[in-house]
């Protein structure tokens, strides 16, 4: 089976439980199990090849320029982890089927579980570190969902948040580390990275990359000082704890350290950081674990401690250490998973996990007790159980490791950790299962059905088998070790065996066991001392830290974003000025190489007009009508400037936009107050003025600097000038750019314009149906109303010129491709013609004669433009490729027909629709506000008067 299918199966299967739960819990569980077993089967098909030492690879090129490819590979290490993930996954699925109650949504649970499973399989199969990162983040997210599965429990939600925060931050660090590693190695493929150890370790990126990657690994694998999230994640349902927090997810960090071992290990930095973090974690976890009363908390700290042990082994950087680590990964997964499941059974049956309320369970639930005791003895490192073997190897390795120049330090700490490790294991056995049977359990416990004790019993069997017959596991361990260490060193020849003679490790082991028993005997006084001793509470520190961050963010946000628009404007201005100042002081300015154009009298007059109008606006802006008149002056001058400076198209557009804008503002001003009161104090006005003047000076300087210099790089305009006629069939280059070269942009722009008009329409609708309607109806105009709202002369003139203006619009539209004009300008001109009818003859009169809803016009415009673009597909050309040809009709001169013209027609319609819809919306509001509405165009109409008079 392809590696892709193996990695994808859990993801695809995640769709099933949610559906199958309809068919019942049994069907749901069976389906999930089937998915996992199918993936496992697929994995087994590769077993012979991997066993023979081959590496199975699959790859699909995905984003080669980013170095991100879908490459998967399977070697011994990947195989061991994938087997663990899928095998233990299958056991956990069976166990969870019986563990979850009817209140729990089993479909949801299995969906999350399969998502997690897929992400884990993805991590261990990835051959691309970027791909690995994606799966890595997916495990963080899916484990968040699993830990918080019981959404009603505050501990569950808090634990899930904490786990996500810690592992998510680690994930961020890991992304940085991986990118650095990738650039140090020059590749993102793991197989190639592993072969470039010397290049990587010589790179200046090595240390930062190592630190960031280790941060990711340590947070994931709960290494000191990030160990605190794991115990809090125990609020999860027990199947989750046994799956994620003993066998798989917390091993992801270890996996990554093992995976990258050949590339990263063996340096001073690696040795110091990894070994000491592992040692500290191991001792700390073991000590705290002894004093936990919650069975799962005890196991959680034990997991932390054992993960520390494995980390320390990987940190030593020796092949023997790697072998011991691999062996312990396997052993720990087996015994810890079965222990968690046993703890879950106790919780399930006795309704408590508090060790102080338990005891004597050996008589009430003998099967569970046996499984748990087997697991706990392995955890303590007692001979004939698998934990003993790898712990021996650990102690052996520790006795050779020298840290901080003291050769006694590591062995002493390792023994200390082992003593406490033995002690909590013995406490787990003695205080929960041994002792007298009690009669005050919250619920009378008894052994559960086979579905629940079967999976841990199976794991227990492995524990004992490996423990008694270690040579069975030896080839597996050697194979995986070979995969871990790569070609860096030889696989050690040491055998896995029960008896190596009287070695330092054996002596340390004996000390640990005896010490553990002594600690257990002294447990009551020790606990008193522990409870009395002051110690930092990780959750409180974490909460305080998170709270401080949240408050800081809150303060920053509300400081900048306090709802004051003028504050945003000032912040924006100051920021732009600061950036510009930085550019000014650090950048270099090229030489002046452009002559100034002479200043002619007419432009100078225009300049005087525009500058004085702008100045007057600032001083007169409280009189709003005067402001609008001045705005008209500026707009007119700007369009004249465009015309003067060789931009006839812009001039036409600007002047027609000016007209509709002023009409629009007048319509709005009809409702708004006519004056702006003086509110801001003088100091504030001075401050704003200073900011504004500085910004204005900056803009002036920037523009002047640009205008006095030629283009620093070649422009693309030459291409457009050259190809406008041959390629686009038009001589008006601006129009050809709009409808042809940059047709896509224009297409987007007419859509935006249409959306803006629709927004206006929607707001009007909302206003006119809401409480504002009553206000508008009752509104008394604050200005005197004209006696003759629709004067005769104006009505007559507008009607007379309507066909003329429409003609002009059509003319401008048709010539647009070759002369100044085009869809935009034509649309605006036609809109003005129609708006004039509204203004002269009244809203009701005009609306009655208006047959096409403006939304429809917008839609038709966008549609025509889009269809023109799609039309190109029919000829096998890309979207919006234009074509043109010349047509000769009898009686007419030869003229050109271009597909771009149809596109321009779309632009035209969209502009007409958008402008008219906006203005119409404003007028509708005016109509509501009690304006005289007459169906007659003219208030005083001689012809009507004679009619009525005659009758």
């Amino acid at each position, binding site marked *: 089976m392809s590696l892709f299918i193996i990695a994808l199966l859990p993801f695809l299967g995640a769709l099933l439980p949610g559906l199958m739960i309809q068919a019942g819990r049994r069907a749901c569980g069976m389906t999930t199990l089937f998915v996992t077993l199918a993936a496992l089967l697929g994995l087994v098909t590769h077993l012979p090849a991997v066993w023979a030492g081959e590496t199975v690879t699959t790859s699909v090129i995905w984003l080669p320029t980013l170095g991100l490819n879908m490459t998967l590979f399977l070697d011994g290490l990947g195989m061991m982890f994938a087997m663990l993930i899928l095998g233990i996954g299958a056991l956990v699925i069976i166990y969870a089927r019986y563990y979850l109650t009817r209140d729990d949504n089993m479909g949801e649970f299995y969906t999350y579980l399969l998502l997690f499973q897929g992400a884990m399989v993805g991590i261990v199969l990835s051959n691309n570190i970027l791909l690995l990162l994606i799966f890595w983040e997916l495990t963080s997210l899916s484990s968040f969902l699993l830990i918080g599965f019981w959404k009603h429990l505050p501990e569950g939600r808090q634990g899930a948040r904490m786990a996500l925060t810690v592992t998510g931050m680690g994930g961020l660090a890991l992304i940085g580390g991986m990118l650095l590693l990738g650039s140090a190695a020059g590749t993102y493929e793991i197989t190639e990275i592993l072969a470039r150890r010397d290049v990587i370790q010589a790179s200046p990126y090595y240390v930062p990359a190592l630190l960031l990657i280790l941060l990711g690994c340590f947070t994931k694998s709960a290494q000191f000082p990030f160990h605190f999230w794991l115990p809090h994640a125990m609020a999860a349902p027990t199947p989750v704890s046994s799956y994620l927090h003993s066998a798989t997810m917390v091993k992801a960090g270890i996996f990554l350290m093992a995976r990258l071992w050949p590339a990263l290990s063996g340096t001073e930095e690696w040795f110091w950081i990894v070994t000491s973090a592992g040692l500290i974690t191991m001792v700390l976890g073991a000590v705290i674990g002894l004093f936990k009363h919650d069975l799962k908390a005890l196991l959680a700290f034990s997991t932390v401690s054992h993960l520390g042990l494995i980390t320390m082994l990987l940190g030593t950087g020796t092949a023997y250490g790697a072998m011991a680590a691999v062996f312990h990964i396997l052993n720990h997964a087996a015994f810890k998973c079965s222990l968690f499941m046993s703890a879950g059974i106790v919780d399930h049956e006795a309704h408590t996990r508090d060790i102080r309320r338990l005891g004597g369970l050996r008589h009430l639930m003998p099967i569970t007790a046996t499984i748990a005791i087997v697991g706990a003895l392995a955890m303590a490192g007692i001979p004939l159980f698998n934990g003993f073997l790898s712990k021996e190897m650990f102690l052996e390795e520790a006795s050779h490791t020298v840290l901080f120049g003291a050769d006694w330090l590591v062995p002493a700490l390792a023994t200390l950790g082992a003593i406490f490790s033995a002690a909590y294991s013995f406490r787990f056995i003695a205080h929960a299962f041994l002792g007298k049977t009690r009669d005050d359990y919250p619920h009378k416990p008894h052994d559960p059905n086979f579905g629940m004790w079967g999976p841990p019993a199976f794991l227990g069997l492995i524990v004992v088998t490996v423990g008694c017959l270690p040579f069975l596991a030896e080839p597996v361990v050697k194979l995986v070790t070979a995969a871990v260490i790569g070609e860096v060193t030889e696989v050690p020849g040491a055998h896995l065996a029960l008896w190596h003679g009287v070695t330092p490790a054996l002596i340390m082991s004996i000390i640990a066991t005896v010490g553990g028993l002594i600690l257990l005997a002294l447990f009551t006084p020790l606990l008193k001392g522990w409870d009395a001793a002051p110690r930092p509470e990780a959750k409180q520190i974490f909460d305080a830290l998170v709270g401080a961050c949240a408050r800081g963010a809150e303060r920053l946000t509300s400081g900048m974003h306090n709802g004051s628009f003028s504050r945003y404007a000032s912040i924006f201005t100051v920021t732009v000025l600061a950036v510009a100042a930085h550019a000014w002081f650090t950048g270099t300015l090229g030489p002046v190489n452009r002559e100034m154009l002479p200043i002619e009298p007419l432009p100078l007059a225009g300049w005087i007009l525009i500058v004085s109008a702008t100045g007057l606006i*600032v001083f007169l802006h409280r009189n709003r009508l005067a402001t609008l008149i001045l705005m008209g002056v500026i707009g007119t001058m700007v369009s004249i400037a465009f015309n003067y400076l060789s*931009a006839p198209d812009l001039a036409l557009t600007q002047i027609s936009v000016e007209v509709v804008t002023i009409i*629009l503002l007048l319509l709005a001003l009809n409702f708004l107050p006519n004056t702006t009161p003086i509110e801001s104090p003088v100091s504030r006005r001075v401050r704003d003025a200073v900011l*504004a003047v500085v910004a204005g000076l900056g803009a002036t300087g920037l523009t002047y600097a640009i205008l006095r210099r030629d283009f620093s790089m070649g422009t693309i305009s030459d291409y457009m000038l050259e190809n406008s006629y041959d390629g686009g069939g038009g001589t008006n280059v601006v129009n050809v750019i709009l409808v042809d070269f940059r047709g896509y942009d224009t297409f987007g722009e007419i859509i935006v314009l249409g959306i803006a008009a629709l927004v206006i329409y929607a707001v009007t609708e909302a206003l006119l149906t809401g409480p504002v309607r009553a206000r508008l109806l009752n509104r008394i105009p604050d200005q005197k109303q004209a006696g003759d709202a629709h004067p005769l002369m104006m009505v007559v003139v507008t009607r007379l010129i309507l066909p003329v203006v429409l003609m002009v619009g059509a003319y401008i539209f048709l010539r647009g491709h070759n002369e100044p004009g085009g869809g935009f300008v034509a649309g605006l001109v036609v809109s003005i013609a129609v708006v004039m009818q509204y203004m002269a003859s009244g809203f009701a009169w005009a609306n009655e004669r208006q047959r096409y809803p403006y939304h429809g016009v917008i839609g038709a415009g966008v549609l025509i433009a889009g269809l023109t673009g799609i039309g190109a597909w029919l000829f096998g050309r890309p979207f919006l490729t234009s074509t043109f040809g010349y047509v000769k009709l009898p009686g007419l001169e030869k003229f050109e027909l271009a597909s771009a013209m149809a596109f321009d027609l779309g632009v035209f319609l969209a502009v007409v629709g958008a402008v008219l819809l906006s203005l119409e919306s404003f007028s509708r509001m005016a109509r509501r506000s009690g304006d005289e509405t007459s169906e007659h165009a003219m208030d005083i109409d001689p012809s009507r008067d004679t009619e009525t008079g005659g009758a």
Partner: protein
Amino acid sequence: MEFLIATTIGVLTAAGIYMVMRLRTFPVIIGTSLLTYAVNLFLFASGRLVINEPPILRDDVTSYTDPLPQALVLTAIVISFGMTAVVVMIALASYLNADDDHVDEAQDLSRDRRAGTDPEEDPDTQRGDEKESRA
């Protein structure tokens, strides 16, 4: 000529920024319109100033001004109309709804924030009672 255009852009920018910082909707709208003029002129000027060389191809002419900024500014002018219309509509709607045309709501917002969320309060504690109902 370059000087005239540069100062025009500068004056429009300064006036626009000053007006945008006022407290009522109308001057803010005027301010954005002034800034629009300034920005359009600036974009147009980035094609450099040329007189009597419109980008309309003629057989006997070889030198033309840069057409690209013109095309960009043309759509910008039309879009800015759409933007102005939307902003005016929003201003009008808020004025008609609240009978107030201030743009700053600084006091109201910060008061709401203080009343709404207490940083000391853990959202989890509020729902603690659900735990009992399940057990």
